[in-house]
């Protein structure tokens, strides 16, 4: 059923990662992603994988849950790995058949790439697992607030994002309901060619748009009734404060980055 699609995969908890400031988490995730692309050999990559493992343990997100969030990217992962496997021409040839050449360098690169993507995705997943969508958008808003100086409507953008996230489950439920209603009137959504199927979507899309607009109006009125006038002078119920925890995290990340540079430097080769 369409309802089972997981969007916004926040898992409530009280771990170290859950309690961290969203801004710090976002910055650290970005730093991690950049750092992982700076890794030049298996030693520095190993350090990053180790860091990712430690973070997973700290977050107390079950491994199974994390693995499931990797499923959608499994194809990309496999694709990059295979591409790297056969397109690397350098190194000692191990096996050759028609246009396919397998070299030891190819195997290294394929594994390297796969591990890189895997840790990248799992760390980003950790961010969404341990941060509520609201905290996430609040954090982004705070981080982008310097852009206000060049007249970027940061608050409106963040509000739009929060609302969009908020309404995804509502709209999914709505689609579900409309689909059932039209199926009850004999709508056939599963058979037929492309054009037929696209046409069959109309009875679902039109009511969906109508109700989305209706909800938008209702929400806009409700916000105006509460005197919403944009971000100016607006305070927050949940103030973001950085604590010792965040300081520790930043220090660890700095150390991690330094570690990568050192490892890159001392082990110049891929392995």
């Amino acid at each position, binding site marked *: 059923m369409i309802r*089972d699609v997981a969007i916004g995969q926040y898992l409530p908890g009280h771990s170290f990662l859950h309690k961290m400031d969203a801004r710090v988490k976002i910055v650290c995730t970005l730093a991690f992603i950049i750092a992982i692309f700076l890794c030049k050999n298996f030693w520095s990559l190993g350090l990053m994988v180790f860091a990712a493992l430690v973070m997973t343990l700290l977050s107390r997100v079950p491994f199974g849950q994390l693995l*499931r969030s990797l499923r959608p990217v499994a194809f990309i992962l496999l694709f990059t790995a295979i591409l790297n496997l056969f397109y690397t021409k350098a190194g000692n040839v191990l096996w050759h058949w028609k246009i396919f050449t397998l070299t030891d360098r190819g195997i290294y690169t394929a594994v390297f790439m796969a591990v890189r993507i895997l840790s990248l995705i799992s760390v980003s997943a950790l961010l969404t697992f341990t941060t509520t969508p609201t905290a996430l958008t609040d954090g982004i808003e705070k981080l982008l607030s310097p852009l206000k100086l060049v007249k970027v409507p940061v608050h409106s953008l963040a509000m739009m994002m929060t609302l969009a996230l908020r309404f995804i489950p509502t709209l999914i439920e709505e689609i579900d309901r*409309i689909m*059932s209603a039209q*199926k*009850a009137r*004999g709508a056939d959504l599963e058979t037929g060619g492309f054009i037929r199927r696209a046409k069959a979507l109309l009875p679902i899309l039109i*009511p969906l748009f*109508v109700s989305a607009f209706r909800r938008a109006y209702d929400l806009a009125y409700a916000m105006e009734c509460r005197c919403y006038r944009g971000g100016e002078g607006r305070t927050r119920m949940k103030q973001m404060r950085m604590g010792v925890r965040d300081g520790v995290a930043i220090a660890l990340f700095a150390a991690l980055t330094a570690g990568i540079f050192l490892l890159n430097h001392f082990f110049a080769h891929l392995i």
Partner: protein
Amino acid sequence: MAELEVRSLTHRYGAKHMPQVTAVKDVSLRVQAGELLGVIGHTGSGKSTLIQHFNGLLTPTSGEVLLDGENIFRDKQATRAARFRVGLCFQYPEYQLFEETVYKDIAFGPRNMQLPQDEIDRRVRRAAQFVELPDALLEKSPFDLSGGEKRRAAIAGVLAMEPEILVLDEPTAGLDPKGRETILSLVADYRRQTGSTVILVSHSMEDIARLATKALVMNRGEVALYGTVDEVFSQGERLVAMGLDVPAVTRIFLSLRERGLPVRTDVYTLEQGAAEYLRLFGKGARA
């Protein structure tokens, strides 16, 4: 006319690895042709889940649904046939309107049944007549209608399929008293004129008491009470214990009993209430 039978139907929501919720648990019932079954229960009691099995929208986790003795989940054709024989009208059906004109929207169901053009036209006009939508409205956009008209147009969309069993999930929700009355009387008319079976989910005990021949009370996904309206409403105390509303008349007699008066508590219509009142306090009741 069709007879609907449900055999120990259970439905669990939730994908693998996720906490599962049993929405409907071991429900069995048999609705004879021409009956009007009232379904009562709290929000979340499994009513809506249950009725979506009747036309094969949901597949049961276990158990079966039989239409004239045939399992509607036997194969795809059987399920599709059940779609058309059992018309299901959801809560707030006006949110399913989508066509350019009311006429086309009502014709959506019959068109999906692949009926000939003149038959479609006959059914649309008949359904519109049933729900008292004037011809002038048929060429309007459904989005230009009033709330009550939209509701009736949407119900007409289900009626136009001329289902042998009509299932309505709270068709009067959110309407004013006059709108409610119109909808309920058109449902009763449809049943009388076509001899169809009607299954009506409602929160209003008065409506069920007045219209239904049988009543089904759902509680936490299970059948709490099932029988004729007399049988079910004579259990006023159990209904109250489940946190359900009982007709106002029943409530009065229940509290009279509480105060120690020797009254019957299986009263649920105004007429019965009046008779019981006269028996107790009327002329010659106490010599």
